[in-house]
């Protein structure tokens, strides 16, 4: 008793204590994509090693894949992207790893397909050469990003070297008001604790707001843990988790199901579990958030003004000035009303079916403002199919959005979807770093899908609650 989920799951996966004092930890599920894996497979070839547990790694392609259907035929126009695509096809084939390529019906952003296939389950250790692996913590697993050397370690041994983290409980009480979503909650948490507040910690999210969240909302929340510096963020598994997983392709079936649920319950934090730190937030008072700067911690509620430089400590001031200069904003200025050029709804943060359902619901009957380019990009082929079955793609198209094929798209600059020049993008992705969306001078404002929809139809940062009459 008195144990939290993090320590229970960690302990069950420890293989040995390494000479460095670090732990050798078994990684139960390894997800692989085309960007961070080719050098790892090359190392295995060089050392004549095979993949130790080929049935515990699953690969897809997401970062480099064009989202315009005309650009998806092979060979890809970008020869470097084509080379990467060929590399993952060959590597997975040579080493006997499952690969979900385009047209398989299972391709998509790695953090969207893991959960929807039922690969992601409570109590697992999950790693992927991608920092947003924290997403999978929504199921009560320890899921974290790794570098390519560790991808090679896991391929060769199914284990990696890890230190034990501290655990911070983040409790969000109350009820969110209409127009406020998981994206706003996590932006508010990062704003409060800082972009490096989570270094050395795993975050356990709990409280009324989190319990009431759907699995997709929990994924949005856990996804951005890393933006707050926490490599891992998780939610204890509950009925919502089990209901989501039931009947998915890789979920336990038949008699195993009940035993699995029992096991999953046993790894949740005990009622009297102890934590290294506890932080509470009042969800009822939250408003929709928008970032104004160049880190995900630089956000304000849509009805607030951008903070003044003077309100920061001396050591923080240079970064605030740098952000204002890069974004071409005045300190103390209102964020509402700032014109946008591009709107992007998608990514592993907000590219799931409920994100598109919510956005389509409010977009219906509106038109994208003149001069605004608006993209909707499903996170996976399955999301695309589900959205089309509901006619969501038509709702968006009628309103003047482009409906694209699944991939990372404009979240980062590795495929043809890019900002140009100094364009400002209202984006549902997770990073507003300088140059992140493909133009070295491009500007990103992070927000929820509803807020991005409001920006699309008004052509500027707007309070979605007012635009769509959400009460």
């Amino acid at each position, binding site marked *: 008793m008195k144990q939290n989920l993090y320590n229970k799951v960690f302990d069950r996966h420890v293989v040995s204590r*390494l000479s460095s004092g670090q732990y050798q930890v078994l990684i139960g599920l390894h997800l692989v994509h085309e960007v961070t894996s080719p050098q790892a497979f090359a190392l295995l070839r060089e050392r004549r090693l095979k993949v130790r547990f080929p049935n515990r790694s699953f690969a897809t392609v997401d970062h480099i894949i064009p989202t315009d259907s005309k650009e998806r035929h092979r060979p890809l126009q970008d020869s470097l992207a084509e080379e990467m695509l060929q590399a993952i096809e060959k590597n997975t084939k040579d080493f006997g790893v499952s690969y979900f390529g385009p047209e398989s019906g299972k391709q998509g952003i790695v953090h969207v397909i893991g959960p929807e296939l039922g690969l992601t389950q409570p109590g697992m250790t999950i790693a992927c050469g991608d920092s947003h692996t924290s997403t999978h913590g929504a199921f009560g697993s320890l899921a974290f990003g790794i570098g390519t050397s560790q991808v090679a370690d896991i391929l060769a041994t199914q284990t990696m070297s890890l230190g034990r983290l501290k655990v911070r409980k983040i409790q969000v009480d109350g009820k969110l008001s209409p127009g406020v979503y998981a994206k706003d909650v996590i932006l508010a948490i990062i704003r409060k604790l800082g972009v490096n507040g989570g270094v050395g910690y795993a975050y356990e999210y709990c409280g009324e707001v989190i319990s009431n969240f759907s699995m997709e909302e929990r994924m949005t929340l856990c996804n951005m843990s890393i933006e707050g510096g926490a490599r891992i963020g998780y939610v204890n598994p509950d009925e919502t988790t089990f209901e989501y997983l039931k009947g998915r392709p890789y979920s336990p079936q038949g008699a195993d199901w009940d035993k699995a649920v029992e096991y999953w319950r046993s790894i949740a934090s005990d009622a009297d579990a102890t934590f290294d730190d506890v932080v509470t937030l009042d969800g009822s008072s939250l408003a929709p958030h928008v970032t104004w700067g160049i880190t995900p911690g630089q956000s304000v509620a849509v009805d607030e003004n951008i903070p003044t430089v003077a309100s920061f400590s001396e050591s923080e001031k240079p970064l605030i000035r740098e952000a204002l200069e890069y974004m071409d904003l005045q300190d103390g200025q209102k964020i509402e009303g700032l014109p946008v050029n591009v709107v992007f709804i998608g990514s592993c943060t907000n590219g799931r079916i409920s994100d598109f359902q919510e956005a389509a619901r409010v977009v219906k009957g509106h038109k994208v403002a003149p001069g605004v380019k608006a993209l909707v990009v499903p996170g996976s082929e399955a999301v695309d199919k589900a959205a089309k079955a509901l006619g969501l793609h038509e709702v968006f198209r009628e309103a003047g959005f482009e409906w694209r094929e699944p991939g990372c798209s404009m979240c980062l600059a590795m495929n043809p979807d890019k900002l140009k020049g100094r364009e400002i993008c209202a984006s549902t992705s997770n990073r507003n770093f300088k140059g992140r969306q493909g133009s070295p001078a491009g500007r990103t404002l992070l927000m929820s899908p509803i807020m991005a929809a409001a920006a699309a139809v008004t052509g500027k940062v707007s309070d979605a609650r007012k635009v769509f009459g959400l009460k």
Partner: protein
Amino acid sequence: MTADSLIITSVSGRGIPLRGNDIDTDRIIPARYLRCVTFDGLGEHAFEDDRRGLKAKNQIHSFENPDFQGASILFVDKNFGCGSSREHAPQALMRWGIKAILGVSFAEIFFGNCVSLGIPCVTVDEATAQKLFQAVESNPSANWTLDLNTLQISGTINETVIMPAGPQSQFQSGQWNPMNELLSHLPEVDEVAAHLPYVSGRW
């Protein structure tokens, strides 16, 4: 290679200062250079957009500055290497010539990636970082030594640095890249796997 030949107990060379908090991996190596299947040639693109951005304003980025070419010890501020898990970031720095990094704090995945590549990252408090920045900037040709046994940085001034005991012993023992040691425990891996219902399939 034996672990002995991989032992790293000190790094020496000239310093290069890079001020600024929250410098993310997208800035260290812009995503367009991740379209590759090897890490070759990444060094020349380190900080490419930041370098260009400053040039356009008639300023100069440290990685562009002739004074700091050939430097091996990078001095940074707070939360260096945040963002993406791309090992391409430390690979780019390493291929540019960086062998050790000293800063106020590091993002966790970046720190771990550096360990796997044999690049020690050590920390100091903000006031010490300021003193070191000034020392490196005012005398770019000075030689610095980072001693991982005594946890000291010494050059024109001497300061104590911090490194957690785990990574410190990884460098001291030459086990910073753990793959060989991980491979030596494969039977125990099978044993742990057999007890995990979702891996063994026995619920």
